[in-house]
């Protein structure tokens, strides 16, 4: 795994559009988006609510099909219907940790599902694996017998991550994985995600609207506004030299706690006003 080609795109999104038709309304959720996700990287997708972030995630996961355009995985055209091996390769962590876990199944059962479906390990081995997975996301193994209601929000989100990892995916799409959590828990979960990525050599597509989070976890950033990709570059550039006024506005909206942040933000805002 160490010899990964860091320059080859895992995902290649080529000129993809997605239009939803509901009744008489047509919603252009994505408009000619082209994007590459590099192996082993964390790509942050930011943008305000309704800008098409989740739609992109749904296309990557095969939940929806693009209206026009194509998706390539490792250079191969992704089929509309995902086979089990393809499903196994790409996993999702959802925004709402409460609804993403079945309230009436134990944490263990939810984790076992992935192992059973993909036939990972033997019967006895699976049980141990569940424990190992929980420990990997920083939870005691005996949580396997708990129900989601008996977990805090942060713990639930860790379980959701563990479930995604259970399939041993190469790519994990995280759709606002921490926005329902309080700051302390968010920090813990983010840290865990970061460590996991490094440990397992994962590729992340990290959807969020919080640029503060992005700064600390992402390698590259894609900024969406109303279904269009308005800016894409590496994290450092986005924060020190954002090209797009919308990106600047996003940065300036972040609540800050320290004076150095204040300085950074002020400098960005001045630029905006100039522009």
């Amino acid at each position, binding site marked *: 795994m160490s010899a990964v080609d860091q320059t080859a795109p895992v995902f290649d999104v080529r000129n993809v559009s997605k239009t939803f038709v509901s009744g008489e309304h047509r919603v252009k959720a994505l408009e000619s988006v082209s994007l590459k996700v590099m192996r082993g990287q964390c790509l942050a997708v930011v943008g*305000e*609510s*309704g800008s098409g972030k989740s739609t992109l995630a749904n296309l990557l996961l095969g939940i929806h099909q693009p209206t026009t355009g194509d998706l390539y995985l490792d250079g191969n055209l992704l089929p509309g219907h995902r086979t089990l091996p393809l499903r196994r390769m790409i996993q999702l962590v959802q925004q709402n940790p409460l609804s993403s876990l079945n309230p009436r199944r134990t944490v263990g059962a939810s984790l076992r599902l992935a192992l059973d479906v993909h036939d990972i390990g033997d019967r006895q081995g699976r049980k141990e694996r569940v424990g190992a997975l929980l420990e990997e996301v920083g939870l005691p193994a005996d949580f396997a017998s708990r129900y989601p209601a008996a977990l*805090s*929000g942060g713990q639930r989100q860790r379980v959701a991550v563990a479930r995604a990892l259970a399939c041993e995916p190469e790519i994990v799409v995280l759709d606002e994985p921490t926005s329902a*959590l*309080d*700051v*302390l*828990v*968010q*920090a*813990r979960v*983010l*840290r865990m995600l*970061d460590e996991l990525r490094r440990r397992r050599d994962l590729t992340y597509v990290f959807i969020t*609207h*919080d*640029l*503060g*989070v992005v*700064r*600390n*976890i992402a390698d590259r950033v894609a900024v969406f506004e109303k279904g269009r990709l308005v800016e894409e570059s590496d994290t450092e550039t986005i*924060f020190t030299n954002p090209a797009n006024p919308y990106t600047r*506005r*996003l*940065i*300036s*909206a*972040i*609540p*800050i*706690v*320290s004076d*150095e*942040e204040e300085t*950074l*933000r002020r400098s960005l805002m001045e630029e905006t006003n100039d522009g």
Partner: protein
Amino acid sequence: MTALLDIRDLTLSFRGVEGENRVLHGISLNVAKGEKVALVGESGSGKSVTARIILGLLQEQRSTRVSGAVEFDGQDLEAMPAKARHRLRGTDISMIFQDPTSSLNPVYPVDVQFHEVLKRRNPKITRAAARERAADALRDVSIDDAKRVLDSYSFQLSGGMNQRVMIAMALANEPKLLIADEPGTALDVTVQAQTLHLMRDLVERKHTSVLFISHNLGVVREFADRVYVIYKGNIVEEGPTHALFSDPGHPYTRALMAAVPKITGGGIPEIPDRSESFSEPIVVHPATEASS
């Protein structure tokens, strides 16, 4: 400085099937007239229950036990007859809830709900007059097409719109005290920032006192004059915003502050789940000169 709201040694326990569960361990806090006070702490630390006690919502439940004093405008809420306490709600005290979309009734349009709210102050107000007042209030929160919003249902409006509707409602009766329970955690950052600005302007214009509840110190820093930090039902630190931010005294406060991801980078700090030091005694920052 007279306190509009003065809470002293408030405790709260819930009686459950597995025995009693103490949630507040004797907290004291006060809010002066025109002051914006923040109450910060992690999820489950007891912020919302405090707010609900101030409104008298929890005392009415049979599974709760409350002790301590809550004084509002010089009157002891506990000693007050239930009716009188009831009368304060929606008039002298109002509250903004965390999740704007689900806090508006899904089967009534905004104007009907606004009308109900306005009737709290002026029971005889007609629907038409209420609409006028509501439209004004909505304009105050920078909603241009007030008419359309008034005729809409919560699910037809964006979260940010709903949040503004809630703020407009909460301020419509010119309350003396506004309780804002994590307004905007459910919104995206840009909208959240906008609403904070709006709220600050409005309360300053109307000299409303605010008790601002949040788990995000960053948000608090933008908004509050003074901050209380609460940890597991205890106030652990208290002081004027800038003093507290420039010199956080309590380990827990420091942890909170560190947890906010910074746009300057620096990685994600390691936050312990629990630390002995979080239970250290309260740190009080002396008030700087009377707030302006």
